[in-house]
């Protein structure tokens, strides 16, 4: 088990969402797009600049693009 930020996770890494520490607006938006705590997500594209693309494995693989600033406030842990 290793804690890190979503923004730091490499491509193809599978992680579990531990906490979402972003502002209220972003948090609500993530919730309504189906990203919740304990969801297992795969990082599809993360290039150290620009947004991060994730695939929510807990929600039928729905894909969400998340801006880097917000991804830096999402704590995740490694599952593989």
């Amino acid at each position, binding site marked *: 088990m290793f804690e890190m930020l979503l923004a730091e996770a490499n491509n193809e890494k599978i992680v579990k969402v531990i906490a979402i520490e972003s502002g209220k607006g972003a948090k609500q938006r993530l*919730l309504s797009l189906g990203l919740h705590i304990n969801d297992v997500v795969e990082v*599809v594209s993360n290039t150290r600049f*620009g*947004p991060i693309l994730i695939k929510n494995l807990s929600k039928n*693989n729905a*894909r969400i*693009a998340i*801006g880097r600033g917000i991804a830096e406030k999402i704590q995740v842990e490694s599952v593989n």
Partner: protein
Amino acid sequence: MQELQLGVESPKKFKLNQSTKVVALVGQPNSGKSTLFNILSDIKVSTANFAGTTVEYKESLISIFGETFHLIDLPGTYSLNPFEPAEHVTVKYLLNNKVDLIINVVDSTLITRSLELTTELLELGIPFVVALNMSDETHKHGIDINSERLSEILGVPVVKISALYGKGIHQLMDACYEQTFVAGNKAKINPITFTYHIEHWIQKILEPAETLVKQNKISPRFWAIKALENPSLVDISLLNGLRDIIKTAESEIEANHRTSLFEAIEYERHHQSMSISHKVTISIPRKSIPFSEKLDLMFLRPRTGYIFALFFFALYFFLVFVAGNFIASLVDSPLSSVPKFYGSLKMHTPFLWHTVEGLYQGIVGAFGIVLPYFLPLLFLTAILEETGYMARIAFLLDSVFHQMGLHGKSVAPFIMGFGCIVPAVYATRIIENRRDRLITSILINFIPCSARLTVIFALTTALTGPFWTGVIFGYVLFAIAITGKIISFFMPKPLGLILEIPPLRLPSMKITFKKTYFKVREFFKVAVPFLILGSVVLAWLEYFNFTYHINQTMRPFITSLLGLPEQLGSTLIFGFLRKELVVFMTAQAFGVTNLSLLPLTIPQVVIFLVFIIFYFPCISTTAVFWKEFGWKHLLLTILIGLCLSTVSALLFKFILGYFFNF
């Protein structure tokens, strides 16, 4: 069959008798709601594979087994806690209008997430049918849905359909009819119950709410939950002491569960929908990853994505150019044979000749210059939206837009802006944050739209050559970025990008054609009358020699400050009507028939062009802007435009004066 499109705030325009049943289509973005609406109503409205296309709601009268239903397609929303302006439309409608039946359109391939909206909608207590759309695609995604089991759990009919291929529509209509007329109030809907620590607060509000909301025909339970979860959506002042109850509830949840009341309710709904989803879906082994997903990965990963994006945009503009030239050549010869029919009027009745000539020039402008390029542009943009590629572009360009203080969601309005600013202004409605929306709307005003491109290309091709086309184009994009940076400096920090990336889909040609048709029709309704009228007014002004007076008034600015010939003063007035009028006006002002004969130097052309691009939005954009954002915002935009155009023109005068000794 009647068809009508309504604005966000405009009142219902159908004259309905009380017995007409209202059916609302509600679903998450990209659930295929609009496609289903098209099938049910047999009229095609915009459908797209990019989050948030139905920004206004569309309505239609349909007939099921002889009964007339009033069908409403509400904008896609992820939940009933609205975020984007378009989502507000949906929630407001459901809170304030009589709805007899909800058809909840669900993307079957995203059932787990979609059920969260479904469970929330069930709280409304309205007769309900779930349409499991795209049910033919679930196996490809490795899931199988037991619709009978889902129907048992929710207490409402669940029908598997495929709106795109017209499957299951008959069963859906059966279910709708049954729910509205047979089951009616006896329908046994099972809204989810919350755990005690939330449920007891709902019960506390429920009883007083019951008397309060009875006349509104909204479920008191829905009202009570919303009062706790999102008090801004309901009028909590209606109930004495409600504010205090909410406050106590909030602090109790905060103390015991270390989370906000909003989140606590949201998470319970989430867990319930997860557990329902587990009960009704079976994972089936997936065959190998389909080619479309591998291709999509190449579109999305920056290293290959930028190359594809560049290629697609080069192709996009190349196709617009080739198709545009082809269409223009088709309409050119019939149009150019017209003037000889009224040429004789010039001698005997010059006023009439000017009027007819004005009309003719307006029609040439619409059919010969704008339409040939507009048509392929709209068609290709529709394809980009239909396939979902627009969302990929938003993802890729997010970091570029960050440089302007914006993010990827502003990409779609920007790209549309290259076609026309008017639809681009409407496209800003998908931007949830007011700050981002305002900055985007100001900036898209300066994008070289098809009309401005016409002016740039016409004048540079005739007078300066392609090098200066490139310089002007590059400067315009640079100026937009700088302006964005300056405006966002004075604004609070942006929220950032959160955007769903829907799967790539093959575009349906039928829908793409219909979509293009609707946009072209819109163009003819909104813009063409202005074009023709403006052209006639211009001809009259010329007849009465009014342009002379305009030129004299503008002279200090045009000639003394910018160093341009005074004849150009009047063209600015008509550029306000429609930008491409500037080209005819300039030719007319100097009395030349061929643009290459214009007595303008290269610096003058460049200065004139940078000024004309920024100085003022066209009349259609102005009208839309006023309606959309109010006059204060319009004035601010115009002011920024005037500053930008003057600064840019002076900048070029200074720099070019150095190189050209001018």
